[in-house]
Structures are given as C-alpha cells and as structure tokens.
C-alpha cells in the first residue's frame, strides 16, 4: 500500500457509503465527463471520483468533511440565527418557498455547514458550502455562519479551512448578499490577525461573489482537478465577447497555469495535503524557535499521526506535494 492509497480508510469508506446521500434508485451513475456508467457503491467508495476518467464529481458536504478530519471524526456546529427573506423577495416563486424546498431536499437549514475537529492532531475548523442547497449561494445566513466559523477557529486556536462550492451571491437577498463579500472578508482578516492559517479549497464550481471574496483570500489556495473556478459565468462571457471560449477555460488547471491557485490536489490526496500544510504552518509556532532536533521540547506538542507524511517505514521519505496532482494509483489517469 502506498502512502496515498490508504487514505480512504475502511471507517471512512463505511461512513461515506452510509452518508446523507441516499442510495439512488438507479444503482448506476453516469460520469458527466466520460459518460461511462459507474456502480454507485464504487463511486461513493472512491469519494465520487470516476474510476474510468478520474473526473471529480460533486461531493456532498458530509463526505467532504468526513474525508479530511483525523479518524473522520468531527463535530458539526449549529449555525447562528440569521434573518430570513430580509427583502420579502419574490420572483416567479416566493423566496421562502425556494428556501423551504432546499431545506426539505437537503435536510439542512442553509447552504453551509461548520465542523470542528482535528487534522494532523492539530485543531481545525472547516466549513463546506453545500452546492445542493440553492447552488451554494451566499446570503446573510451563509455570511453569518462563515463569520461564526472563523470566530470558532480563533477561539479554538484552529486552522480555518473552507471548501467552496457555490454559484455566487444569493440574488434573492439582493444587496445584502453583496455585503456578505465584505463580511466574509472581515472573517478572513480576523483569522489572519490571530496568526492562524486559512486554507481555501476550491471545488466545482466556485464562481461569482464567493470566488470574488473569501475563496480567493486563502493563505494557501487549493483546487480540485477540473473544478470550474471564475468570476463571471461562461455564458455571460460568451455573450460579451461573442466568440467561443478557449478549451479548458475557467478549469482548475487553467487557473493554475495562470497563477491563480497554489496547487491542484486530487480528492484522494486532499486530506494528506491538509495534514501536511496544517503541520508545516502550525508547528513552528508551537515549537520553541531554537529547539534542537536532539532535544525536542515536545511535551506540549501533540503527536502527529502517521498519515504517510512522515516516512512510514524507516527512512522512506514521503514525496513532495506538487502543484499539479500526481498520479496516485496505477489505474489513475490524470489529464
């Protein structure tokens, strides 16, 4: 077993399989990229990465959070109260009706969840935007929850991690949704001032007001392979310039090439990347500056679990993390 292939531990497999995503009536799912049929159980066990073409399908928030915390253990934090339908908005339907429908369908109150746990034996608070809930759109409640999560990270002296999956601002909240761009930016500033790392993971899709605020302010910005990331929607751009868009436009790889994300990490290696970053960024602050390697002053330091980041077997050093995702199994094809 390589250091990467054991990332999906049995416990997590079980957990992901039995997650909130109910077993579809149709036991097979078609990969939107290569159009091959995938048995649902295999798809879930592979964290919804296509076994044929490695396409990263959208992943539910539970599985998202389950895959990054130590032992897949985390505590979900209640969302703060926020005003509902502040503008009394109505398009072809009433906004509260749209909200209720999303709540019923997802079993969640809003488009974001907050989790608290450990990553690499160091405290971490993570939020995941829920694309299934009104396209992961950001309104007052999402902004308020994002702020609450940032404050919790500060209180717990924890790394702040965000999984973005959002079409942008929630239009039904008009200008108040636009203001969330400023409010979430304040949350990022508070974390920054507390000296804590803020890691932003951009998953498919990260666009509009979310991309133009907290998503792009990470100390480290990671993207999932193939994720659509951008400010304006592809259709709007096409209408503006009246020509077709370049191949791969607004994909994670395009952003990497243009210097807009730090690295692309395969979903199966995401936890490893977060453990490593968390460890690298946090430990220097926890360790005395001049601690010598021979006399570790490590009483207070948590033991870093062996996740393959430190040489598992004797002198075998873990490989470096590269900006481009590395092939992680002989059956994996990247690009």
């Amino acid at each position: 077993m390589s250091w990467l292939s054991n990332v999906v531990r049995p416990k997590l497999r079980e957990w992901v399989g039995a997650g909130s995503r109910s077993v579809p009536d149709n036991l097979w799912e078609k990969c939107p990229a290569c159009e091959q049929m995938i048995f649902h159980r295999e798809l879930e066990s592979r964290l919804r990465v296509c076994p044929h073409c490695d396409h990263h399908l959208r992943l539910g928030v539970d599985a998202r959070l389950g895959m990054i915390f130590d032992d897949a253990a985390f505590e979900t934090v209640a969302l703060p109260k926020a005003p509902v339908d502040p503008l009394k908005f109505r398009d072809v339907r009433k906004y509260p009706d749209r909200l209720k429908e999303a709540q019923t369908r997802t079993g969640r109150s809003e488009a974001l969840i907050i989790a608290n746990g450990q990553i690499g034996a160091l405290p971490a608070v993570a939020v995941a935007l829920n694309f299934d809930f009104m396209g992961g759109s950001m309104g007052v409640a999402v902004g308020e929850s994002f702020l609450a999560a940032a404050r919790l990270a500060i209180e717990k002296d924890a790394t702040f991690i965000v999984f973005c999956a959002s079409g942008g601002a929630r239009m039904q909240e008009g200008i108040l949704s636009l203001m969330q761009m400023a409010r979430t930016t304040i949350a990022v500033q508070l974390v920054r001032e507390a000296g804590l790392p803020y890691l932003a993971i951009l998953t498919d899709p990260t666009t509009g007001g979310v991309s133009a605020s907290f998503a792009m302010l990470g100390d480290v910005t990671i993207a999932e392979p193939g994720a659509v990331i951008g400010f304006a929607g592809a259709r709007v751009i096409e209408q503006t310039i009246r020509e077709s868009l370049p191949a791969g436009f607004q994909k994670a790889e395009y952003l990497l090439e243009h210097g807009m994300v730090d690295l692309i990490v395969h979903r199966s290696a995401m936890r490893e990347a977060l453990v490593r970053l968390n460890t690298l960024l946090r430990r220097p602050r926890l360790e005395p500056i001049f601690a010598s390697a021979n006399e570790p002053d490590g009483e207070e330091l948590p033991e870093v679990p062996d996740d393959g980041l430190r040489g598992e077997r004797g002198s075998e050093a873990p490989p470096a993390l590269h900006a481009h995702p590395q092939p992680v199994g002989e059956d994996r094809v990247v690009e």
Partner: protein
Amino acid sequence: MRTFLDFEKPIADLEGKIAELRHLSSTGEINIAEEISRLQVKLDASLKQVYGKLSAWQKVQVARHFDRPHSRDYLTGLIDDFVALAGDKAFAEDPAMIGGIGRFRGRTVIVIGQEKGADTEDRIRHNFGMARPEGYRKAQRLMRLADRFALPVITLVDTPGAYPGVDAEARGQAEAIARSIDICLGLGVPIVSVVIGEGGSGGAIALAAADRVMMLEHAVYSVISPEGCASILWRDGEQAKTAAQAMKMTAEDLKELGIIDRIVAEPLGGAHRAPELAVAAVGDALAEALDELAGRDADSLRQERRMKFLRMGAQQGA
C-alpha cells in the same frame, strides 16, 4: 442634443417648446419672454412630479443616462492639483479605473473611480467603466499609497460591473476584486465612497467597503443588473423592471436597509440636467464625511468600519 428617457415625454415636449420660443425670441417678438417663463414653471413642476417618484427601473435608466456626470467630471470639478497615476505596476493600465492624488477642499486625498467615458469613442476606450483585474490592482496600489502617506481615500463608484471577459478571468478578476475589498477593509485611513451612477455588483463593492458609503439620489447599487437577475430568476430578460423593483436597488431602499449612510440629493430632473450642481453636492457631502472621520487613529477606523459591515443584515431582525 439632450437624450430623453421613455418616461420623460411631457418633459421633452416642454423643453422642446421652450427651446423653440427661445429661438424665436432672438427675432425680437414681444410676449415671448412671458410665455417662456410660464412654460418654465410648468416644466419645473413636471420635472418635480416625474423625478419625485421614479420607479426602480426608471432610476436604473437615469443612473445609466448618457449625459450623466461621470468620475472624470467629479475629478475636474472637485480636485485641484490632480496628479493622475496610471497602471497596476504589474500588467497594464486600465482606463476603466482612473485615480491619483490631489487636493480636495484643502486636504490631500487619493481619488479612485470607475470611468465610463463621455462620447461613444471615449466610452469604448474606457470599456464603459467595466474594469479588468489590472484596474482593481491599480486601485489597490493607490489605496496602499494612501495608507503610507496617511491620506484619506475617496472612491467614485460607477460601473455596470467588473468586465466579464476571457482576459479578465485569465488574470484573476475574482482575486482582484477580493483583494480590493480586503484592502479597503484594512485601510488605516478614512475611506469614503459615493455611488454616482451604477453600483454594479462585485465590481462596485471592490471600491465601496468604506467608512461612509453615499449614493446620489437616482444612483442604483445591486448584486446583479436587473436584466441579469431577470434572466436568471424569471428566465426572461424582459422582466428587468420587476427585478429592479424586487432587488431593492435604489438609494432610498438601501438607506432603509442600512447599507448606505447618506443620500445626496440631485438637482431637479437628475444630475444630467445640471452636472455642476450634482458635482458640488457630492463635494459637500464628501467634505462633511471626511470632517467626521478626520483625526481618527488607524485602529479605531478599521474597527468601526468592520463593525459597520458586521452589523449589516443582522439588524434586519431575525
């Protein structure tokens, strides 16, 4: 030649008649002066009536009016010894974002604004006020300069939105906007924003995460254009009028929601009928805001600016 909006029909008729009479009066007819002043009274009443109760969509039209004063007019009218500064010092100069250092009523200030341009050719050159990432990065650079020399920042918001183009995306439009908001909120000097025309979405708030945000009476400020909102939520771009109403994008709405601090009254019939009066009114409002913020230390400015945005939304009551 003045451009009339579709709801200005009675106004257009009266203004036309007056112009005709003025032309005649030069030929020496008597009683014409009297007739002109009679019509002028009627015109003022009509302007007052029409402009006193503009719908949200009508305000959108006024805010986008071809003759409406734009950033450069405010710079010319309000800023002395202006030194325009170009470029983001990384990629390019963006004519959609203008800015520099100058004197405003005795203070040295940094001014940044989106510029829509005057005539058609000029508008194309300024990309209709739609800035690219280099525009936002230029704004950031100017704000940092302000911080370094303890100069207050004035921003003039007038944009349909940040430019949605391939090149803009390639150079990180999202990051450029996010960082601008970040820098606005982190400034240790006062920052005052005025939405003088269109406050379009992320492209607007990138300059308007400010200590004081003001709007001209007929300016609009929203998360998306009413046309965009209509085509997404109603799946019908024709519903822009309805969307404009529903989004609450007028100065009055935003004042009520606690998003903006002040509405600056426009001259009768809109800023485009008397640009110099609109410019002066904005100048007075800016001076008052800067007076209020003068002498505050960096920490308290930052703290209060944050608190102001943190309160937004929450105050609408759960």
